[in-house]
């Protein structure tokens, strides 16, 4: 391996931090951690390596978290992939935006920042249903 290398103490600390990660992610994070440490000076490298070691279990759980992948799959329903989101309105708590409503897709969680009638194919029935809900004191 050519080029700059982290000091031995930092390398010694990072080695177990990489080993606890899932096998197919180790090469990527080994390289990322090395880059990160090389950009720091000697004492900074040791502190950063200790920080990486402290965070390695959290990183492992994040990489193995199947709920995240499941959420993405759920979010990518065919309707959403075609851009036919099912937006529902909610009152914005921001006091600077009086009467402002924000719209969020019930399936994928996507927020819509413009007024919903600007989007092609917006489901007017959803808008009508929400208007009835709010006017009847639903919140």
């Amino acid at each position: 391996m050519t080029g700059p290398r982290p000091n031995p103490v930092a390398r010694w600390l990072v080695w177990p931090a990489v080993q606890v990660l899932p096998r197919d992610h180790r090469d990527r994070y080994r390289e990322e951690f090395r880059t990160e440490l090389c950009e720091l000076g000697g004492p900074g490298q040791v502190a950063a390596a200790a920080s990486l070691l402290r965070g390695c279990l959290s990183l492992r759980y994040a990489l193995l978290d199947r709920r995240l992948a499941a959420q993405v799959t759920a979010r990518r329903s065919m309707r959403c992939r075609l851009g036919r989101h099912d937006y529902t309105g909610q009152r914005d708590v921001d006091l600077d935006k009086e009467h402002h409503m924000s719209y969020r897709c019930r399936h994928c969680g996507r927020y819509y920042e413009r007024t919903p009638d600007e989007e092609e194919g917006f489901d007017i029935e959803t808008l009508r249903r929400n208007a009835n809900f709010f006017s009847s004191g639903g919140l």
Partner: protein
Amino acid sequence: MAANLVESRHTQVILGSLIADPRRRHHSAEIRSATGLGIGAIYPVLARLEALQWLDSGWESPSGREQGWPRRRFYQLSTDGLALARGALASARAAPDGAVGRLRQAGETG
């Protein structure tokens, strides 16, 4: 799940720094200096955001660095991720903070 993730202060700080310049590709050292977080706290958040497809990441081209230097990995908010992150951050900021806020809200409605 995403809502729980954005409730975390670390996630909010990191998303805030990415949203500040969403079209730019950020590398982890930049995120670290912009947020002031320890590097060990940044990677788990980035990994979760990447798994949610809010972030795209990739290695820099070999010509982008001096000979022998290891490559850096860049992170950038995806188009969907930018919209989702803005909405989630707005909701998180509007929500009452922590247990005290929830108790206060319960007291007002109860």
